[in-house]
């Protein structure tokens, strides 16, 4: 099993940072790395809504909205908040766990608009991992492949 726990000291520092810089950094990174692969999806139901991703063990909260041109940081009250540990988010991203499984076992919490949450989940599930990997910068794609194969 992968050891993906973060050192408590690091989590301690991260959790004290204000939310705005990480949200901005997330949007910039996601737009650069992921948007080329994601922009072909049908985002219609998701545009203009507000999202929060809470990485519990890091005390990190990423808040953003989705526009026609990508992700943008946002500080308004989120329509949908997804919370889990860093390790569980990585398991989800690498397709090694099913969100319902994590939800049943209380490791994943979804709050807010349930229908929006389900739409996001189904949209991402329908995404072909090969296509995403193909559009990532090579070192990142290699790291992701290693993670998925573990």
């Amino acid at each position: 099993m992968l050891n993906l726990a973060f050192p408590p000291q690091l989590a301690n520092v991260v959790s004290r940072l204000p939310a705005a810089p990480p949200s901005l950094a997330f949007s910039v990174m996601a737009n650069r790395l992921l948007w080329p692969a994601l922009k072909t999806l049908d985002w219609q139901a998701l545009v203009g809504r507000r999202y929060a991703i809470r990485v519990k063990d890091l005390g990190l909260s990423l808040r953003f909205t989705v526009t026609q041109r990508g992700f943008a940081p946002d500080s308004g009250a989120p329509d949908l908040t997804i919370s889990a540990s860093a390790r569980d988010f990585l398991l989800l991203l690498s397709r090694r766990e099913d969100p319902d499984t994590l939800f049943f076992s209380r490791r994943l919490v979804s709050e807010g608009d349930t229908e929006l949450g389900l739409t996001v989940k189904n949209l991402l599930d329908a995404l072909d991992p090969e296509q995403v990997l193909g559009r990532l910068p090579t070192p990142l794609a290699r790291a992701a492949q290693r993670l998925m194969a573990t």
Partner: protein
Amino acid sequence: MPLDLICPAGSLVSLKAAIDHGADAVYMGFRDNTNARAFPGLNFDEAQAAEGLRYAHERGRRVLLALNTYPQPDTWSRWTGAVDRAAKLGMDAVILADAGLMRYAVKQHPQLRLHLSVQGSATSYEAVNFYREHFGIQRAVLPRVLSLPQVENVVQHTDVEIELFGFGGLCVMVEGRCLLSSYCTGESPNTAGVCSPAKAVQWTDTPAGLESRLNGVLLDRYGRDEKAGYPTLCKGRFEVGGETYYAIEEPTSLNTLDLLPEMLKIGIAAIKIEGRQRSPAYVAQVTKVWRAAIDSVKKNADGFKPAPAWQAELNKLSEGQSHTLGAYHRPWK
């Protein structure tokens, strides 16, 4: 080919996961309420369905289309249109529940293979044979209400292939007739293609626990370490006579690995895995376990024993605290 493995696909990625891990066939739905998993963002448009069929057929596997809801009078053409598209695409079978739609399919597309859906709620060989006689159905999926001896009795008195559910979420045993979701939300699987529509579901983390509500009705409150379940009325805890408990059904998953040798002996044609609403990771994990189990029972039925690792893997994926053999294994009739 007894004990064909039939796996769920809510997306093209799931379909490929099922095929790659050893499914003999997958079942899917179109992107509307003509199937009983009409969730936002799930299911196949025509191009995706065509690609899924190509992928499966190239590998010698089959694709079944679930058209298992009941057509509504003002949108009848949506259902007949779906049958037409299924025939045009070359689906290996359509899974139907409504007799009117079967009649349409037989008349318009006599070459199209018909399966009777679990939602058709046919529990006796008389009912199954009725569908055979009138619509030429080739296979029936039996509701999860019969014990195995009762299933065997059906198999012995019909030429129709019999398919059983093997694993996954379990309904309160009135499949095809349940209106509990409608009672709360106005929508149920048979009419709207969805049980507990997401727009009516609310999850709230409170100091007393995680609460699930359906259209404002409190379904359950989960303590900190309790496993959660799907927000359906049948699996809620309610106050009855001063006590709070699962007044209708406990959230458990069906898991019939133990019964595989008997199912093989009885002559069950296919085992169905529930879960088109689940992710590709679930489909891959469940398909892998069931492929290994079915191969093993076919090799040596008498010596078959489910590997503890299989059970552990399946338990991890389950809704609720435990799994059950369901009605298949009950002493009373």
